[in-house]
């Protein structure tokens, strides 16, 4: 199982590396979105607007990135996987790969964002942990919804429709934590919210693992 997951992730990385334009596209997506926001707003001093804009950008970047991971699988290769591996290993490899990708991309988004806008975060450690956990949660959730949308006929708009309502529990927590990182907070409270975030991630992963086999078969 672990071995399967490892090899599937390596395969995804190889495909990604061979199609560099896709990764370049994601980077360009981040830069241009942040730049459009910069042109429209010029200056951001309100933490609420800062965090709202930031997380909206992250959500769109993750929808763009994660939905691609199923679209790039063609039907024939999919039948090949069905003979090779188990559904659990397949979804875990996709989830794991998307988690890694989104961690990197969200850190890059943060870098681009603070390049154009003033960095309003005062407690970097708290924010970075939130960012990593949050982007991983979004990536896991989106992996599952894009698997559903992929089976339903591969439309991008369906991914967005299916995942926006489900992203809200995560986003509420993330915005809450961002506000803490940009202002005052007590360590106990921050830890409580980080723990809830972590539990939510675990729940999403367990659900994907249990439910994906039903999507897997034709």
């Amino acid at each position, binding site marked *: 199982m672990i071995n399967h997951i490892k090899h599937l992730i390596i395969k995804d990385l190889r495909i990604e590396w061979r199609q560099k334009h896709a990764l370049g596209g994601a980077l360009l997506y981040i830069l241009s979105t942040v730049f459009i926001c910069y042109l429209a707003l010029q200056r951001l001093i309100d933490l609420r607007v800062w965090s709202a804009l930031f997380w909206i950008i992250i959500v769109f970047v993750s929808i763009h990135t994660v939905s691609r991971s199923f679209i790039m699988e063609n039907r024939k290769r999919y039948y090949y996987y069905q003979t090779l591996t188990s559904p659990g290993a397949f979804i875990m490899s996709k989830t794991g790969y998307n988690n890694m990708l989104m961690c990197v991309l969200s850190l890059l988004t943060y870098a681009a964002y603070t390049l154009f806008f003033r960095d309003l975060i005062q407690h970097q450690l708290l924010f970075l942990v939130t960012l990593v956990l949050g982007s991983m949660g979004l990536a896991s959730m989106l992996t599952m*919804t894009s698997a559903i949308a992929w*089976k*339903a006929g591969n439309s991008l708009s369906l991914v967005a*429709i299916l995942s926006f309502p489900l992203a809200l529990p995560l986003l509420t927590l993330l915005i809450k934590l961002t506000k803490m990182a940009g202002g005052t907070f007590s360590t106990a409270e921050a830890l409580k919210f980080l723990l809830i975030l972590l539990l939510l991630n675990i729940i999403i992963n367990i659900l994907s693992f249990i439910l994906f086999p*039903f999507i897997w078969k034709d």
Partner: protein
Amino acid sequence: MERLGTVNWLRHYWWKLTGVFLVLYSVIAGLTIDVPDLPLVAQSIRNVFFHVCMWFSMIAVFFYAVICSMRYLATAKEDDDIKALEAVYTGLFFGAAGIITGMLWAKFTWGSYWVNDPKLNGAAVSMLAYMAYLVLRQSVNSKALRARLAAVYNLFAFVLLIVFVIILPRVTDGSLHPGSAEETPFAVAKMQGNMYPVFLSAAAGWILTASWIINIRVRTVLLKNQLK
């Protein structure tokens, strides 16, 4: 169709009769019993017999839909899928009714139709998720695949929504509704002793009525399928 004797008739219809009776009782008693005259809420506290019950019914119905989806995934019987779908339609209806009664109440007590409250947002998000469920169903042609994907999404969404609607409001900001981490001064005040029987019968009555609606809808669909 065979004719039923009185005993059999009662055995078949007791829950529908109880539902009708409880709803009627709660409407009449809800509008006539003495209620405490609280600041801000005043007579509008009677809405508790209607508004809250819509949410209870919605949650009960969605819960039933999830159970049907689970059963569908386990057995792949088409009936379970139809039941889940009809339960979702019914739940959306009760959700809409809950939002409308709640908005009117909010206008009178909190001053505007929509306030930023975790429970309100949770309700709105659940409605969005179940509408997404309907969109998902529309976009798949194959019957079996549609049923399976819909069931998977239903389960996935339900668990996340439970976290959003029930767990998060208890740990984040105080809600204007009762039953959250910190009670705000504008929270709708506690019910008085004589209101509980009416409230409970209203809740039970509306849930029974909702089951009846689902029952009729499912039977209609099954009959239509037979005719095809």
